[in-house]
């Protein structure tokens, strides 16, 4: 059974350096295999690799699809979607920074 969620990237410059660090760090706390994509039919990439996540160059306004497969799949997909929905807990005043 795979759980899938999606969330809109609203961060000013997309899924950039600092949000990617937060996203992949959170992903690594789960045992499930977790993958993300910018389209529902993929390509799907490993959400625990910051190198691969950054290389997607996800712009602002993209919808991020998140799928998890494993013991904690429901929790993993919801927690990651929530992080994106919270704009990575970034303050607006940091928006121009790293």
């Amino acid at each position, binding site marked *: 059974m795979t759980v899938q969620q999606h969330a809109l990237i609203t961060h*000013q*410059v*997309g899924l*950039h*350096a*600092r949000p*990617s*660090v937060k996203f*992949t*760090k959170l992903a690594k706390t789960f045992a499930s295999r977790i993958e993300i994509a910018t389209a529902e039919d993929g390509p799907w990439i490993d959400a625990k*690799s*910051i*190198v*691969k996540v*950054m*290389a997607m*160059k996800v*712009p*602002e*306004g993209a919808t991020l699809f998140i799928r998890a497969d494993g013991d904690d799949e429901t929790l993993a997909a919801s927690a990651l979607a929530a992080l994106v929905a919270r704009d990575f807990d970034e303050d*607006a*005043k940091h*928006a*121009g*920074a*790293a």
Partner: protein
Amino acid sequence: MPAPLRLSGQTASAGYARGPLWLAPSRTETHYRGSGDVNRESSALANALEKASAATAELIASAEGDAADILEFQLAMIEDDTFRVSANGRIAGGEDAATAWTAVLDAEIAGYEASDDAYFAARAADLADIRDRVLSMLTGEKAGVIPAGVIYVGDDITPSVFLAHDWTGGGFALRHGSATGHVAMLARQRGVPALVAIGDAPLEAGVDSLLDASTGSLTASPAPQDIAEFEAGRQSSVERAAFAAQYAARPARTADGAPIDVLVNIAEPSDTASIPIAHCDGVGLMRTEFLYAHGLPDEDTQYAAYRTVLEWAEGKPVTIRTVDAGGDKPVPGFTVDESNPFLGLRGIRLCLAKPDIFAVQIRALLRAAVRGNLKVMLPMVSVPEELEQARTLFRAEADKLERAGIPCAMPPLGIMVEVPSVAIRPDLFAAAAFFSIGSNDLTQYVMAASRDSAKLSALARPDHPAVLELVRRVAQWGDENGRPVSLCGDAASDPALAPLLLKSGLRSLSIAASRIGAVKAAIANAEVAAP
């Protein structure tokens, strides 16, 4: 003595520095000798990666804020197995560790450099930093130490090299580089003068050089007059900054104690990057014409721009003007050709004539209104019906958004005072929530003198008694009837004119951000009768 050579570049961080030129080696040279053994090469790489992680973690411990964030990002990239696995694949194919690592990182860097998105393209410097740090761990070579007080010139500069150097008295000029890179951002935060894109002209190492990162030039082997000019520029910039800084951070108050609101005019969201929000009372005019520079913008593009500014303002008011196309600002697919465009179909007239196009901006504004303290201002209003028609369109779009369950709010609707009919009878516009006097257009309409004709500059004066009388009337009517009145034309940014505007009864000015200190200083010296 070599001849002076002046190169121009793009400002990444304004400021002045003088010192000997220090030319960075164009590329890390590797003197790595492979062992020829796959397992040994693979473990040499693993070893170097581990050392690079430890060195980065050590830098993080002594870094703060954005510097720490940048290093955290680099550490996460180094610790990611993806690069190591790819490099091991090449090592298995017979390459040594340094060659394999360089090939993998260079391919990744090329991918970032090719990105259309300036933000992602600028990350190439972070990857080069990671590549070089791991290489120096492999070869055991230390990166050359940059001497203190020099003007660094290189193709680019990596964040870790920047952070490891004490820049006191010095600065840098990059042959390529980007004003949006991590290093440019760090330079601005630390006040290190920096230029980018100075090009590939040959330079001689060690010669005296002048880095004027304010106007954007690097002069190698300067002549005495270059030095005199440079020092004069540096001196006046120091004096201006010190004088304005005294006032910029304080609330504005006249010599006789009247508090004055000083807001800023912005032309696009990125303007806010250089404005400390604590130095102003909000945005008195956010123009939206930049969105229409390449044709008609979609709703989400507009929403993102408005939201950026509203969030930056931290709850202070942000007055966004609906698109003021026409006049001297044509937009393909929107404006019409006219023989006398300043008296033609422009501003709110054009928007009401093309409600489908206007509706897109209205929806973006209604959605943005929930993100901060938004006010919306209509340009070129001449009769009260225009305000009512616009309000009807705002209500209709708000209904549609609410029915679709999209968060939105109705912002207060105010008007620009540019057309004499409004300035003469502000009472007819009692339905407006606020007024903002556009003194540039008001002056040209009252004086019948084009604002862009140098020959008419003696006529097109915002301090003509007829113009100031209209300002006084609007200010007085607003004061008596509880409608805030501000002025957002160029006159407010002029320290010589601002006191006259206050004497006419205004207590709110919206000005160019670069003038905050100068205008607040002029206000502090002005006396105005209590309103």
